[in-house]
């Protein structure tokens, strides 16, 4: 236990991968079924969740260290690359989101996946390791490795278990992300080199890189170019308009579990990347591009909602709704104040819950009807009342009804962005209207009205397993909507630290009044930036 105590993060990150490798020894098909590998995987993901709860228990909200539970081991010392992991109040919640959703996703796959199950479940666990690794890495090269490691299982999940056009979708997904991350890799090497120039040795440790002074302030200054290199990779992942077109295809072709993980966790990598790397490393570039990115975010919110409205396929509709919802995340981050940033982080968690839930729900009716076209449904509230209830609750979360989690995120983001730009906030708030339009219109066409297709007359309502899949999400929707403060406590210190690095105004104020850096912007909402 002593080892576990000092290597808790490593244990949490690599347990799923180790479990998957051990799982290869489990017989794939016992007599009459494949229960063994399913149970084995589910237990593995639950143990991982338990470990992540230990992590939560060990985390101190007001800890003095920037990163807690840190572990460092030499890796490639010549280049200053090390195995360096640690968490703060932001990555903590993203880790919990990942470990919370993975068992749900595994349980949801029990019936949907009927071929090459062993590989499927092993890939899911490997994917979890990749995602967790990216969230704990505080060495920028290590982050990059996990970032790429994640890509592969996802690519295979889509390419093997996907829909009819899975190869096209998988290639598009791969193409987009690889192009994005290559520039980031170059930027990473440049940073390591700069560390050599400025401090005499290579380093890719994040805390070292934060100390670099890189000229910035102009459009073609090194900071701006480096920022854009990172931003491209992250914006593709988010995905930020107009780099979003891989998402609808990937979502539609991916199996349910793939869509859920993609929407709930992988997209968060983009937002997280901005928070952890792009912002604090290049604050002058952030200031320079603030308005531009807020404008793009506002466009994304409205554009995503409009295009979602006219989709004939439910999964595509949800995919475009992600473009809209993740636009809010970018808007909040670039508003550069505590309200907006906290709202953005919260919105990432919310989006994981609500969009993940929507994909699970779509998957459930897809398993029954083998279609996702809105026109093929109608009136199924009558045959599936429990499904209707769960669907309604997740829909309300998605349209940000107060009392659900969605409201807290959008409210804080818009409240925060108002002090940065009232006009762009007003445009973004239109998303509140159109969000209701496309979600409720879809809900009506799927659930209400008379039953128009014979096939829908005898649909079976949710099974016990499906209820078990949805119940945690429904609870999360309300818990996060009513008690957001439960989550804000851990975030607060980290958000303030983030602001003091990323917002030049706050950073300069911190020199004058070091004791309360972020409070300045809070008390002065009208003239924040």
């Amino acid at each position: 236990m002593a080892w576990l105590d000092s290597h808790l993060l490593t244990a949490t990150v690599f347990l799923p991968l180790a479990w998957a490798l051990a799982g290869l020894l489990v017989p794939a098909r016992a007599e009459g079924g494949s229960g063994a590998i399913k149970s084995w995987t589910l237990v593995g993901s639950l143990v991982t969740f338990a470990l992540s709860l230990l992590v939560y228990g060990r985390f101190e909200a007001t800890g003095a260290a920037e990163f807690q539970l840190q572990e460092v081991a030499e890796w490639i010392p010549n280049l200053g690359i090390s195995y360096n992991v640690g968490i703060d109040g932001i990555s903590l919640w993203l880790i919990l989101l990942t470990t919370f959703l993975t068992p749900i996703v595994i349980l949801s796959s029990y019936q949907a996946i009927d071929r090459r199950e062993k590989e499927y479940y092993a890939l899911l666990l490997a994917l979890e390791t990749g995602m967790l690794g990216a969230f704990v890495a505080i060495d920028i090269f290590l982050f990059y490795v996990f970032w790429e490691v994640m890509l592969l299982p996802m690519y295979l999940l889509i390419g093997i278990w996907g829909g009819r056009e899975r190869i096209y979708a998988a290639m598009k997904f791969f193409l987009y992300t690889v192009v994005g991350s290559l520039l980031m890799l170059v930027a990473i090497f440049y940073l390591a080199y700069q560390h050599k120039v400025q401090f005499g040795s290579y380093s890719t440790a994040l805390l070292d890189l934060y100390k670099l002074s890189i000229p910035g302030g102009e459009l073609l200054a090194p900071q701006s170019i480096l920022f854009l290199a990172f931003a491209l990779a992250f914006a593709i992942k988010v995905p930020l308009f107009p780099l979003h077109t891989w998402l609808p295809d990937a979502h539609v072709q991916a199996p349910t579990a793939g869509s859920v993980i993609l929407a709930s966790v992988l997209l968060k990598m983009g937002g997280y990347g901005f928070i952890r790397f792009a912002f604090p490393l290049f604050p002058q570039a952030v200031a320079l591009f603030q308005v531009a990115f807020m404008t793009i975010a506002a466009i994304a919110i409205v554009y995503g909602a409009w295009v979602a409205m006219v989709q004939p396929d439910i999964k595509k509709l949800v995919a475009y709704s992600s473009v809209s919802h993740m636009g809010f995340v970018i808007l909040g981050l670039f508003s550069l104040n505590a309200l907006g940033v906290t709202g953005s982080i919260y919105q990432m968690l919310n989006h994981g819950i609500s969009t993940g839930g929507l994909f699970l729900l779509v998957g459930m009716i897809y398993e029954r009807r083998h279609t996702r076209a809105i026109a093929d449904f109608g009136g199924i509230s009558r045959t599936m009342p429990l499904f209707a209830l769960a669907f309604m609750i997740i829909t309300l979360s998605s349209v940000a009804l107060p009392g659900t989690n969605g409201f807290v995120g959008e409210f804080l983001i818009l409240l925060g962005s108002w002090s940065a730009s009232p006009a762009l906030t007003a445009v973004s708030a239109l998303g509140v209207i159109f969000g209701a339009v496309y979600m409720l219109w879809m809900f009506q066409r799927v659930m209400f009205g008379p039953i128009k297709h014979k096939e829908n007359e005898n649909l079976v309502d949710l099974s016990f397993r499906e209820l078990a899949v949805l119940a945690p999400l429904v609870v999360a929707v309300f818990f996060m909507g009513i008690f957001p403060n439960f989550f804000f406590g851990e975030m607060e210190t980290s958000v303030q630290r983030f602001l003091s690095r990323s917002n030049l105004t706050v950073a300069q104020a911190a020199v004058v009044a070091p004791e309360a850096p972020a409070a300045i912007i809070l008390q002065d909402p009208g003239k924040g930036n």
Partner: protein
Amino acid sequence: MLALIPLLPLIGFLINGAWYAFGQAPAGRKQANAAITGTLASLAIGASFVVSLILFLQLRGMSPEAGDHRFIEQTLFNWMQIGAFQLPMTLRVDALSALFTLFITGVGTLIHIYAIGYMSHDETPGKFFAFLNLFCFAMLMLVLGASLPILFLGWEGVGLCSYLLIGYWYTDDEKASAGKKAFIVNRIGDFGFLLGMFLIYATFGTLELAQLTAAVHGGLPAGVAESTVTAICLLLFLGCVGKSAQFPLYVWLPDAMAGPTPVSALIHAATMVTSGIYLVARLNVLFSLSPQAMLVVATVGAFTALLAATIAIAQRDIKKVLAYSTVSQLGYMFLGCGVGAFSAGVFHVVTHAFFKALLFLGAGSVIHGMHEEQDIMKMGGLRKQMPRTFAVFAVAWLAICGIPPFSGFFSKDEILWQAYSSTHGHALLWGFGALTAVMTAFYMTRLFSLTFLGTPRFQEHGAHGHGDGHGHGTGAGAGVHESPAVMILPLAVLALLSAVGGFIGVPHASWLDEWLDPVIHSQHELAAGVSGSTEWLLMGVSVAGAAIGIFFALRLYADLARAEALRKRFAGLHQALVNKWYVDELYDHLFVRPIHALSQGLWKGFDVAVIDRIVLGIGYVTQWTGQTVRVVQTGSTQVYAFMFVVGLIATVGYLIYGLA
């Protein structure tokens, strides 16, 4: 104690809701009896009424002179806290919210009890009563919330409940659409509300209602421009226009008739639509600082009142007539607020809650007795078959027409007088109001006459039940019948309140004005050139106007042939009125279709045609390059992955040994 007021209906909702979802909804389970679920729900809201009454008495016991502030506060937990931004979940009851709480829970309880009878043949009463409780919970949060975000929680909550209840018979696509329309049109208003909140926070640094009111109590605070206040008020008012169904966002309310009648009564009388008036009255100090905003409020109110009244004249559906009358009466309330007579606006909210609930529930009784018939042209002479309904309906009719001493007279007259005499008033505003009063008397009498007077225009034994599984006693032999006691009793109570409710606001001796004084300070300042005696003159004019309206309608509809001839003479106008001035069609062509077409265009014309083509273009270039190194183009993912890893290792290896 205070928290019990909203919590009790919430608990009712949770019990009934859980029971329904897991005990009744799954296939093959037995539905609960309306009497049991209905009683449970009625007890929940009834208990909430008792608590409201106790708190009201507590507030009365406090004397403002002795330094007591007439309010009670309770903080439940901290909703959000980020640095200096604090948002505790605090409830607060003061004179204004106590008044609202009383009639929400009071009238709400009566509607619940009535619904036990009305919904006795419904397929899913468990679900219905759960939603009804939830509706009351949301409305109570709205009036008890101590800060704008909590108010907004209730504000959107009633929007949700209206969506669920209007579309309650969801298997009918039209009804489901009506529910959706209500939610979306409300959301347009909520957009304004949200922005208003943000601007308030940016300007005053608080979202707490008491702090906000305190900040503006002594006039414009230093450093705050009047234009900012105007912007705040107009943004918030956009929210009110949506929620309280004013022009141009009133279009959802008439469609809301699709819901079961008790829901219509709840939405139109005690809850939901009154929230806009509540918000303006709550922030009366703020609104008073901006004459422009006040003018907008008054104008929108007066215009809506008249517009809705014209449409009501030509409707044949009994609930549609009442729906437009609600829109019209809400216009009155805003007219009152807009000319600075906030307490008169609130007064009309209260009396309207009584007589409009009575009108809707009475109409429900008629519909129930007529086996789901809603067309007043197919009624007539019902005073014989439904004498009790007839009697209570008559009270409500006189109240809405403004005949003294029924309740509507006092509140309506107060508004009209202030519209003329206050410093914010204008003779033109009064003119709109007075004309509306005449038309109200006319169309309400038309409704009353066609329903209850004259001879029956239906076949005594041929009335058929229709509607979504709701009808009962179909087939021959089922006659028109009076409603059961569980429905008549609430009607009787409401009739009493509609008759005498106006006496809480007798001119110059108003208990209500005095009670509301801590929240709404009534000034009764007369504009230049208006003398006190004018008040009596105008009162006489408005009563005479109502009498004329009633007289003409009675005459006209006593002889349907004459009404028909009149309709033919003004066929064009009549057609425009029947089609509600084509406003829905206009919106459809102006907003719905263009946005839909634009969205289609963006998707197919930009997403797919432009962005994807660029990306695929890059892909083709790569592929073309690939042709030259065809050997490695195996198409196998595993090989690609392998090569990627090899490449990575090679790069890293080069960097390590090449640079070190």
